[in-house]
């Protein structure tokens, strides 16, 4: 016994991180519980090999990345758009239908933009901007040099910026067209 964390402890402490990571790597809402199971099955099998050489979170992220990548390859899952976002997001008792819908439209928009990025850029971008992980840690999680982290971040930001601008431009165009049509 190395005195490392038990499976249950890892699960308790890291479930949310795993869930977030999978979502941010493009695993759909309806699919994420399944993907999280897959991740923790690997964790269960490999926990003994994890010897604390890295942080648990970086080790876990590596597993999440592979699970998400494999799911992406079976890409039909990600096109079940219908039920996709449908299932099971956080329930906020105070939100009314409309507010909740707007929130989810935002998620859908974010997904759409992130979906256009290659997975390796997406990983760096979301770890840095959303998970607020440090560069060194990202490098460890993805097993890439620090310089590569920053160069991917730069490209991913550029990508994000352009995609969002395009989406917004279309929205404006649409609104104007609609306003015109109503006259």
């Amino acid at each position, binding site marked *: 016994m190395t005195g490392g*964390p038990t499976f249950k402890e890892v699960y308790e402490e890291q479930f949310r991180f795993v869930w977030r990571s999978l979502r941010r790597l493009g695993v759909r809402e309806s699919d994420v519980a399944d993907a999280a199971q897959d991740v923790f099955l690997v964790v269960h099998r490999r926990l003994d090999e994890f010897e604390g050489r890295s942080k648990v979170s970086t080790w876990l992220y590596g597993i999440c990345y592979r699970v998400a990548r494999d799911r992406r390859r079976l890409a039909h899952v990600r096109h079940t758009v219908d039920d996709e976002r449908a299932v099971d997001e956080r329930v906020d008792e105070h939100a009314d239908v409309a507010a*909740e819908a707007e929130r989810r439209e*935002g998620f859908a928009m974010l997904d759409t933009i992130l979906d256009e990025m290659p997975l390796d850029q997406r990983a760096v971008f979301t770890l840095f901007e959303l998970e607020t992980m440090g560069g060194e840690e990202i490098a460890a999680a993805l097993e890439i040099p620090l310089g590569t982290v920053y160069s991917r971040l730069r490209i991913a930001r550029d990508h994000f910026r352009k995609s969002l601008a395009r989406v917004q431009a279309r929205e404006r165009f649409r609104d104007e067209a609609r306003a015109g049509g109503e006259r």
Partner: protein
Amino acid sequence: MSAPKRWLSDGGGATRGERDLLRLGAAHEPPASAKDAVWTALLAQLPPIPPGSSGGGGAGGAGGGKLAAGAAKAAGAAGASGSGGAAVAGAVGGGILKSALIGAGSALLLIATYAVVAPAQAPSLPAPIATTAPDPGARNAPPGPLGRSPASSPIARDPSGNEGPAASPDSVAPVGAPLPAASGEARVAPSSGHDSKGLVGSAGSAAAPADRETRLLEESRRLAEARDALRRGDASGALSLLSDLQRAVPGGILGQEREALAIEALAKSGRTSEARTRAQAFLQAYPQSPHAPHVEPFAR
């Protein structure tokens, strides 16, 4: 190589729109029930920890042999889906969550997915089923490019039988998508059986992110109109907007929002028994939906 500033921090250089969207993403957390649900499902798949084994995390000895869990799951799913019962497939495969959390349609689809990757585990099924697969091959033009058709048949056939239209049309979407998808799609295609035109339509729309985006914007805009109408007290106007939307984008990304609004609009326009029926159906299909608490009162 100094670290760049984060976009969400002060002076990070992001625009307001960028920050808003990122902030939303950063706050995205799992639903409260997810952790326990996944844990329960995990327990069902992990080998029992022998009593009195040297504790220490339980991961050790126990983890070895049986945890070709993915494979087990896949095999279970493939086998069961071949024999017909969707719910059973989920349970047998250990993917309890699939049946519990996910609408049956996507459960089937997931199962199909696993079955596709696990042809080896379900070798006995294909032959008889393949002959049953009735659809006049006309479907996706290249019928044969997959070479693995035996695996495809059970999938194709089963989900269609049970759970038609909801999930399948979209599942078939990415004709132009990355390779593995495309071949998988072709195989899943027969499941949606009769509405091949739907297939083509949604295939085109989901294939390219940009198209998906367009579709999403369109849906989003029309939903907003219906919402506005409802807020103005124009329930019947809202209803007709929503049914237009349903016709225009039948397998919409925001289908749940549409239905939740429709239920509310029905109730407000006095059609309470319809509202009740649809609310009950909604809750059955999406018990975990964020809209469930709002829909719930209409189901009574």
